[in-house]
């Protein structure tokens, strides 16, 4: 079967600075894949190209066999790729349910309904409640997100992403800034979603414990280029990877 995501020779220059150079990789459907690398390795730049924030300087991106290179974010989202951000990115002053409703409306292309009250749409509310329940956010449905804990805000963002029913989800450091308990909860959630739904996850992460516990396949990015690829065991043993991380961080 064709991979859900195939990237060929992806390159991004910012002026003279080469953020990403000739990266090729594939993500197989249903195989939780991670992209790791030291700070400044180009992970977020790579994600920004995949999700359409800016076009690559050269190279191609194929999603389910379709060329999506250079498409704008809203089109890529509508095709079935969702993403979360390193810094929590939600609709701040709205309630938790309204955050999810917006994404549901976008997903169903229901934004051209100008007259029926959005907050009374039974079908959307039902779908929204299911998502909130799966995230354990049901008690906060009508609370403005400003009143939530940091970890719960991150969950709201996952909820927004899930509301789009994406087939591929890019998670940019999903546990960044979380307490150990929150991290634990997030790992459990990712496991659960990867197992229970048809969604394929592709994540970047700093926390090696998270990476080795959830991913089946790992790509290592170093100074904008691909350094290694393989199973968690292979990556842990790889001497070049150990060198890139200065022997420090790479232990489970």
């Amino acid at each position, binding site marked *: 079967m064709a991979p859900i995501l195939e990237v060929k020779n992806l390159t991004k220059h910012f002026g003279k600075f080469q953020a990403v150079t000739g990266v090729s990789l594939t993500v197989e459907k249903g195989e939780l894949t991670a992209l790791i690398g030291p700070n400044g390795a180009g992970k977020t730049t790579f994600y920004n190209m995949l*999700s359409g*924030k800016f076009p690559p300087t050269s190279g191609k991106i194929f999603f389910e066999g379709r060329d999506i290179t250079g498409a*704008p*974010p*809203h089109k890529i*989202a*509508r095709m079935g790729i*969702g*993403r979360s*951000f390193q810094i929590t*990115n*939600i*609709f*701040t*002053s*709205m309630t938790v349910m*309204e*955050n999810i*409703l*917006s*994404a549901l*409306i*976008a*997903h169903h292309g*229901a*934004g*051209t*309904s*100008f*007259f*029926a*009250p*959005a*907050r009374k*749409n039974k079908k959307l509310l039902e779908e929204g409640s299911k998502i909130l329940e799966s995230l354990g956010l049901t008690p906060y449905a009508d609370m403005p997100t400003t009143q939530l804990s940091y970890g719960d805000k991150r969950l709201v*963002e996952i909820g*927004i992403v899930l*509301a*789009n029913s994406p087939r591929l989800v890019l998670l940019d450091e999903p546990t960044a800034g979380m307490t150990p308990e929150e991290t634990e909860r997030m790992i459990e959630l990712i496991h659960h979603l990867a197992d229970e739904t048809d969604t394929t996850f592709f994540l970047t992460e700093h926390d090696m414990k998270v990476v080795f516990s959830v991913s089946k396949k790992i790509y290592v990015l170093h100074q904008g280029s691909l350094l290694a690829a393989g199973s968690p065991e292979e990556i842990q043993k790889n001497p070049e990877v150990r060198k890139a991380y200065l022997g420090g961080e790479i232990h489970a």
Partner: protein
Amino acid sequence: MTRSDSSLKPLFGWAAGLAALILLPFVINTYIILLTTEVMIMGIFALSFNLLFGYTGLLSFGHAAFFGMGGYVTAYLLSHACPSLTLAFLTGVAGASLTAIVVGYLSVKLDEIYFAILTLGFGMMFFSLAHQWRSVTGGSDGLTGLVVPRLGWGAFSVDISSPWHYYYLVVAAFLLTVWILRRITQSNFGLILVSIRENKERAAFTGINIRAYRLASFSIAGFFAGVAGGLFAVFDRMASPSMLHWTTSAQPVLMTVLGGAHTFFGPVVGSILFFFIEHIITKFTDIWMIYLGAILIPLVIFFPEGVLGTLLGLKKRKHG
């Protein structure tokens, strides 16, 4: 409170507002009737502006362009022997909407200060156009001395040159505008506008076409600004360049900030306060703008969410 009570409560508010507007002419004099008519027209203008500002997060400094366009087209047709008031008015609104679609198309890709400056630029362009294009616009005098035809057909027509009749026409237009804009802001479309205001990036990565929604919002705002402009030209019996001046663009901004941008009725409350303050002060002095400024500063400091927004916020905190 039982459920039926809570669902009846807003209905009661609407009924009370409607009754007050209908009964008002029986208790007040002509001067106040004229003033209230103007407050409602400017209320429509401010509400239309706030769809863009409060709901979509776009601060336009050129909203007078559509107000003026609605006014000028209506006035032009009426001064060129258009027999039907309805036709002249609807053409004015259509002209304003089309202008908004074009200006919006060119503006909505920009953000914040760049959007504000670009809309200000378009606004000034329309002002100059009205000023210079004498053969059509009447230059600095504008199109004056309009004769207002009867509204309706034959036996089913009314003379709206009487302030009372015109007052009721404006009440109808005002209520219709309030109702439609209220529905729009609470719809799916409205919720998407708010999410764009709250976080443009998240919205785009959620599959929302920001430019398309902003353009739709801009066009609807232009439509209702055109409604206000058409009504104003008929009210004033003229369309003059001042309708297109940047200070006219500033009026809905002031009214909205005064009343509260994040409350639906904020701009209406702001419009009432604005006229109230203006008419009290002009009784004593001609340099009323200085005093208006002196009153606005403490209002903005002590009512950061606008007068209505701050009061509703206090009430909410008290009750729950």
